[in-house]
């Protein structure tokens, strides 16, 4: 019975594969410094490419006077020449809130460069964005009706014009058409009917080809499948397979970039209630596959999410499911971590407190207002000891103050977020490299290699993010204290 339930859960989850890449969370949230100005940036990505992105920027201080934005490629040609910047509009109600739109003309790894100007001078920052077409929009019935009507008018018009031309155009003025003219007119109309029908057929076929070609682009950017095999009882091998056949040719798994010191971040989450989670870091094999020696794990179905960043700075999340037997593995080491606890609460708002093993706890400062989708928020978590005071033993976990994973109950949303936002560090480092003119620009909470803070971090960590759609979510918050990775778990109902 238990096995049947698991099989059903796997089947349902396979059917509920996310409809868009980066697992249902295409918008970009970012927090960082443009020179002397601390900015919170939201990029609402368009559904089609080329398309218009909406940009929202909130300045922490009130001394920012103007913000300009330009799109560039993240790397290579096109990353060093900028179009005329667009000026963001200042909100009438809130002088620290700026909004605007930006055309994104290409798919792939792009960046939005943000130039702030104010009382303290100028500053720049760059926000990497993963630009990809998410779907094809259907045609509204009213528009379809109008276009059908116009097509009929033009079709019948063309046939009638051909008939009128053949019947009367050659007649001397004043003459009336005879039977021969009428016969010629009928022939001309018949030929035109055939031509118009042929034209419409060619047009329809062409439209179909364009649609298929566009759909292939949409599929190309869908999350690749994580094809997993278990070897020797505990060695998990992961291979990526794109939705589109061109994916494997174009995305070189042998050249993915290290993202805070690891080429892949693998998350194994127990199905269906997310009552266990592992955050592991597989190594690359020679043929572009990845492998990791699993720790001891109970048998059961697991959801697989594996984050990588390709050589151009484009982030991909491999998605899959696996049915594991009981695994007898090695103990966790290095940056690997795990958590187990109660399953996701789907019927009510979860607790804002998550107990840690050593009697410390993580408190989510969520406020009292209901959580809403598509609203940029700062998810602030306080790590406090049993005395209720912020802990003093926090240290960087893979170069960051913390990591958070937002997972929707049906696994159609998965976002791996840092204090700087939803962008992988590897992409940010590429963007930073392009900002040579302003080395002071630095994302929030980021400790670059060699510049990690030597002392303890404050006991508070915040993540800029917005839920992409309503539903039940589980948030895994991971921090490192005194050499141990600890995970707090929070459940949220989003309207």
């Amino acid at each position, binding site marked *: 019975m238990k096995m049947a339930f698991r099989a059903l859960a796997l089947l349902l989850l396979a059917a509920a594969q996310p409809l868009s890449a980066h697992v249902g969370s295409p918008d970009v949230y970012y927090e960082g410094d443009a020179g002397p100005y601390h900015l919170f940036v939201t990029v609402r990505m*368009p559904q*089609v*490419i*080329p*398309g218009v992105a909406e940009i929202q920027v909130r300045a922490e201080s009130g001394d920012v006077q103007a913000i300009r934005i*330009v*799109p*560039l*490629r993240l790397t290579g*040609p*096109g*990353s060093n*020449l*900028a*179009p*005329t910047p*667009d000026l963001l509009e200042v909100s009438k109600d809130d002088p620290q809130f700026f909004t605007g739109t930006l*055309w994104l*003309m*290409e798919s792939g790894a*792009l960046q939005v460069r943000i130039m702030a100007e104010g009382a303290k001078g100028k500053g720049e920052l760059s926000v990497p964005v993963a630009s990809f*077409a998410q779907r*094809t*929009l*259907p*045609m509204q019935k009213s*528009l379809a009706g*109008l*276009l059908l009507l*116009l*097509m009929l*008018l*033009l079709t019948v*018009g*063309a046939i*009638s*014009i051909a*008939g*009128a*031309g053949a*019947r*009367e*155009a*050659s*007649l*001397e*003025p*004043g*003459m*009336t058409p005879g039977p021969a003219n009428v016969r010629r007119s009928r022939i001309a109309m018949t030929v035109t009917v055939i031509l118009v029908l042929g034209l419409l057929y060619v*047009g329809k076929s*062409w*439209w179909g080809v*364009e*649609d298929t070609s*566009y759909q292939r682009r949409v599929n190309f950017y869908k999350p690749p499948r994580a094809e997993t095999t278990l070897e020797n009882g505990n060695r998990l091998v992961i291979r990526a397979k794109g939705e589109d056949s061109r994916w494997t040719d174009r995305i070189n798994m042998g050249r993915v970039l290290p993202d805070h010191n690891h080429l892949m971040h693998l998350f194994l989450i127990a199905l269906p209630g997310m009552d266990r989670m592992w955050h592991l870091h597989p190594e690359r094999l020679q043929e572009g596959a990845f492998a990791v020696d699993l720790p001891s794990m109970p048998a059961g179905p697991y959801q697989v999410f594996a984050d990588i960043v390709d050589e151009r700075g484009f982030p991909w999340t491999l998605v899959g499911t696996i049915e594991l037997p009981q695994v007898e593995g090695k103990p966790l080491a290095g940056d690997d971590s795990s958590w187990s606890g109660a399953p996701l609460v789907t019927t009510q708002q979860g607790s804002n407190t998550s107990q840690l093993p050593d009697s410390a706890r993580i408190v989510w400062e969520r406020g009292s207002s209901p959580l809403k989708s598509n609203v940029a928020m700062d998810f602030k978590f306080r790590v406090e000891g049993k005395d209720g005071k912020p802990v003093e033993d926090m240290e960087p976990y893979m170069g960051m103050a913390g990591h958070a994973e937002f997972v929707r109950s049906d696994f159609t949303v998965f976002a791996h977020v840092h204090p700087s936002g939803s962008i992988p560090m590897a992409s940010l480092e590429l963007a930073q490299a392009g900002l040579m003119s302003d080395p002071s620009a630095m994302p929030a909470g980021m400790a670059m290699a060699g510049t990690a803070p030597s002392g303890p971090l404050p006991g508070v960590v915040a993540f800029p993010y917005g839920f992409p759609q309503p539903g039940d979510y589980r948030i895994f918050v991971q921090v490192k204290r005194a050499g141990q990775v600890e995970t707090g778990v929070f459940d949220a109902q989003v309207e």
Partner: protein
Amino acid sequence: MANSLPLPQTISAQKVDRASAEALSIPWYVWCCMVSVLSSVIGIEWDIAWHKSIGRDSFWTPAHVLIYLSGILAGIACGYLILSTTFQKRSPLRDASVSMWGFRGPLGAFICAWGGVAMIASAPFDNWWHNSYGLDVKILSPPHVLLALGMTGIRFGTLVMAVAEMNRAQGLYRAKLERVLFFAAVFVMAMTVGIFQEDTNRVFMHGATFYMIIMFAAPIVISMVAWVSDNRWAATITVAMSTAVHLAFVWILPLVPAEPKLGPVYRQVTHLVPPDFPLLLIVPAVVFDLVRQRIGTWGQWKQAAALGAAFLLSFLAVQWPFADLLMSPASRNRIFETTNYPYAIPPTSPWVRNVFVPTEHSSAEFWVRMAMALGAAILMTRIGMAWGEWMRRIRR
């Protein structure tokens, strides 16, 4: 009954003396259609240059306004002409009109009105296309083809209107109308050849597909105009005018400052990016006229075969070596403007690297396509001749 109605102005003109016939001026509706054609010609070239150098920043760019103004102007002018011819019993054009759906008007007016409706219908279609498949940064897409069909309709309608008027006229008035014929034919050809400009870039000029496309697009209009006009140099005049207009765009557009508003930008652009240097169609047009003057007594298909073959061979003889010049540093100047790269063309593009792109993958495929180019040249010349013969007969 029809004989009792007042004769149209142009018919009356035939009955008065030559001096008064020569004094007749081009009717207002032909002028309106010519302005509409000009509006779409400038609008389209400006719009393409705008997309290449600035990128789309809103629907209401001046270039877009000019394009759609063309459809509106032709639609309103020809709509009014049709309504006035239908409902005014004393309309001078009533006898020289065709009837359709209970309306009366010159055949060209119906074609222009159709073109106007097609152009306007393409706007919501194009807008939906952009919303669904993203803003297309290419010329050949279904809604753009509908727009092109509409513009071609207006140009063809103007041609038909002018020719019907010309066929009823004589003397200086006829000569004036023949100029309208050349004017309209130039821009019909600009449409049939221009729609394929993405496939006729210089990088394709050493492939047979390029010649096949041009043979489908150019000889039909050139032979049509040659068969309609009494002028023995009609093909040469038409292509010379077309080349002159094209060169004007090549040389004038770069004088206008412009910079990209969209990104990524692969190439810094400081002025409007002009179209490519015109194809050397003037040479096959001269050859066409010379051959035509010598084979007038031949059968129709024999003439088409000789003219089509002469057209293709002379075009090959000049365009193939000219492509080498366009690829060389010698052409990178204000005359040839071969550094007219749009801002969105990456440096890895064969266009920027000045390398030919093979369109056929074997010599057998090349020669099959060349044979198809020859077949197209002959067939399209013959169709153009038939089209021209029909045009010579139209009176309404």
